[in-house]
């Protein structure tokens, strides 16, 4: 079996992975660094982020205000020390990207422009038109090519973390091109594999977002944190789930029901004004807006389509010029994929799964509960997002915590010895089991059938609203699906670019992730942010101002325990949106 050795190994080549690689390369040019990614890095899902990246930039704003918006937006489940570090470092990171050539949109005087965003009280969202993630990722990828100590394993798929004496010391991975299985050893491994939206049927997430890093960490014995907190974005296109950015609402778009009525005014989000008002109406937080959709559907005031109910996003009053300057990608997506023109027609939208607040538990430096293992970006849960992430906080998060993880891993790697013999034995084991899966015949299940069943049960039972019984049913069902997944047989037994083998492994990862979500959701008998229990509609700070920590027991079952939330300066309060009500609340 071929063995590669590095000081630091990045698993995932998106925004967080590339930022971490550059950080490690800069802090110590003698380190051997590798980035392993199942797709070419510029294909990573960071590319799809549209609206922008938050970081205090203007004189009317302050770090404390960004922190407060983030913490209240997260329904007080954020760790406030992490939030404070985040808001402080975000502007520097965004500036660094400017220095690396990111084509940020500008004011007429040449300074960076910022826009409004949901749940944010001030304009602080940097943007590159409505392709912010695309430009950030390409800037990072192109810049990373300057660093000759960073090697790449493009189109390699990681199947397992190698752990000995409690320390993560590398991975086993398959090279897609050849089918070769190799061990890639490293003194520190950083997971930057992103989210897991594909666990659900309707999602903005790309095909590659299958929770690989979360499952790898969980199987290796690390804690996953707050897995019940899944964000629905209120405005995705039905069927495809293509994201229509929140920036459409920040620029003044309206959400209307079947009667053309701006229904958010009925849900304690403020009164409708012709122009967008910060932290109000369409600029409320995503969890609230997605919940309002369900309420509106229950009242029979949504429209019916072939892919379920929907409402309308109306941009017509913004005019062609604004749409073409600030939201060109939205127009392109609507024209190409929905065959409608937002300049003259309303866009059909529905809530679609968008982002995972939970993930691999890390501390403020990106270190997980396993020595040698770090995580950053959507795969990780620091947590700055708490029970609901604010739009435009995820892009700066991957920069800030990517850089932090890169620095911490570089320091850790400097103190470690190379991997021992037990690691090679583990790698050989994994190779044998992969070969067995590849050659197995006589099974009775197809991958797509199991995957679709999983997605259906997650949407039905663990969606925007959940109940104890619906979650219990989902857990049973998912365990049956795990059993069915073990009976999958591949049509494809070839070594060259075997995407069916990868799909089978991804499905097994997704089932682990789905079960973690459901188990944490069952035990959290309160409603907070994106986790809404119809049977426990109130927030319960007495019992649940705490992070869910789920880990795998040696017998394969799961254990859920709780850790307190770190509160520094913002004691739990009521989440208030809409101008007049908010003024009253803040006295």
């Amino acid at each position, binding site marked *: 079996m071929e063995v590669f050795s590095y000081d630091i190994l990045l698993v995932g080549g998106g925004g967080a992975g590339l930022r971490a690689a550059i950080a490690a390369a800069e802090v110590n040019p003698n380190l051997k660094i590798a980035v392993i990614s199942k797709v070419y890095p510029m294909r990573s899902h960071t590319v799809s982020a549209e609206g922008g990246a938050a970081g205090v930039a203007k004189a009317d704003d302050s770090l404390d205000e960004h922190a407060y918006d983030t913490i209240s937006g997260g329904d007080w489940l954020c760790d406030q020390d992490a939030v404070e570090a985040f808001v402080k470092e975000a502007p520097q990171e965004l500036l660094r990207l400017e220095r*690396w050539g990111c084509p940020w949109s500008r004011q007429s*005087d040449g300074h960076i422009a910022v826009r409004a965003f949901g749940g944010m009280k001030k304009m602080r969202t940097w943007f590159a038109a409505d392709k912010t993630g*695309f430009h950030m990722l390409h800037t990072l990828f192109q810049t990373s*090519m300057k660093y000759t100590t960073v090697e790449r394993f493009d189109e390699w798929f990681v199947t397992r973390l190698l752990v000995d004496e409690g320390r993560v010391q590398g991975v086993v991975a398959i090279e897609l091109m050849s089918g070769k299985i190799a061990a890639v050893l490293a003194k520190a491994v950083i997971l930057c594999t992103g989210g897991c939206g594909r666990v659900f049927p309707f999602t903005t997430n790309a095909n590659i977002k299958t929770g690989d890093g979360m499952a790898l960490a969980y199987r290796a014995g690390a804690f996953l944190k707050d897995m019940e907190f899944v964000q629905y974005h209120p405005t995705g296109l039905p069927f495809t789930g293509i994201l229509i950015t929140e920036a459409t609402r920040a620029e003044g778009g309206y959400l209307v029901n079947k009667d053309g009525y701006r229904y958010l005014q009925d849900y304690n989000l403020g009164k409708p004004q012709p122009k967008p008002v910060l932290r109000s109406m369409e600029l409320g937080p995503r969890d609230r807006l997605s919940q309002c959709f369900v309420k509106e559907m229950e009242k029979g005031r949504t429209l019916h389509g072939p892919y379920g109910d929907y409402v309308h996003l109306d941009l017509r009053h913004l005019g062609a010029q604004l749409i073409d300057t600030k939201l060109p990608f939205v127009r392109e997506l609507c024209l190409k994929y929905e065959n409608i023109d937002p300049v003259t027609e309303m866009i059909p939208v529905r809530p679609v799964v968008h982002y995972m607040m939970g993930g691999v538990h890390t501390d403020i430096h990106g270190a997980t509960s396993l020595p040698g293992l770090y995580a950053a970006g959507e795969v990780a849960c620091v947590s700055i997002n708490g029970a609901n992430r604010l739009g435009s906080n995820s892009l700066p998060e991957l920069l800030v915590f990517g850089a932090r993880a890169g620095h911490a891993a570089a320091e850790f790697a400097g103190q470690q010895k190379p991997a021992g013999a037990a690691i090679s034995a583990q790698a050989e084991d994994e190779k044998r089991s992969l070969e067995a899966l590849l050659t197995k015949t006589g099974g009775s299940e197809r991958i*797509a059938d199991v995957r679709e069943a999983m997605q259906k049960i997650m949407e039905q039972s663990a969606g925007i609203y959940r109940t104890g019984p619906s979650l219990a049913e989902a857990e049973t069902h998912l365990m049956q699906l795990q059993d069915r997944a073990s009976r999958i047989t*591949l049509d494809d037994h*070839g070594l060259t670019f*075997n*995407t069916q083998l990868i799909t089978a492994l991804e499905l097994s990862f997704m089932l682990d992730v789905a079960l973690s979500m459901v188990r944490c959701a069952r035990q959290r008998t309160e409603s907070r942010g994106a986790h809404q229990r119809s049977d426990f509609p109130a927030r319960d700070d007495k019992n649940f101002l705490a992070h869910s920590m789920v880990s795998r027991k040696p017998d394969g079952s799961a254990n859920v325990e709780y850790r307190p939330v770190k509160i520094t300066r913002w004691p739990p309060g009521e989440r208030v949106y809409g101008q007049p009500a908010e003024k009253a609340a803040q006295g």
Partner: protein
Amino acid sequence: MAETIQLEVARYSPEKDSAPSFQKYEVPLRKDWVVLDALNYVKDQQDGSLTFRWSCRMGVCGSCGMMVNGEPKLTCATFLSKYAPGPVRVEPLRYFPIVRDLVVEMSDFMTKFRKVKPWLIRKQEAPLSEGEFLQTPEQLEVYKPFSMCINCTLCYAACPVYGLDPFFIGPAAIALAQRYNLDSRDQGADERMDILSQHEGIWGCTFVGECTKACPKNVDPAGAIQQYKLAAAMNWFKTLLVPKASP
């Protein structure tokens, strides 16, 4: 599902086949399906060994480029109904070595991509505390179109010069060099010029503009190539008059 359409998909496995052949699949013809949806239908329901790349399904990751009825297309942005009543012929991107079925070998492109030094070059780094480089919306507009490239390589599959001369650095890489050359913050145009001048292939480009026609993101690589040729010619002319003293 009353209506269907036939796909003719190129199949090739280096482990089994000496040359590519076509396989036919009957798939539902649905109004909202793109060619990629049809391929996924085949993979999920009929033949799990059919091999292709895809990810975002919204035209921004650049993975799913293929030849559809002889033209390079992003299959996620190409409706199936456009080809009714069929058949729809799907092949790997032209001029690239085939890895398997619809997957092509990308490493030549990746090498060329890096060669043009696609990063911001400054003669001297300034500390972050000095704030952002100022850049007006007008200055941004100068290079912005060239920054929209998603690296899908459809332009290579459309380029007759690349077809004849695999050493040609190619449309996307030249557009990328221009993206930085034209950026008011960059000072690396001379370095990149030296690199690009070593690649004779560019002079073979007769401005047929096939690359620009194929680009799904309106990048206009043909325009970048013309700009570059002009600059290179001027540069060459200057070296005749004034031998280069310093770089």
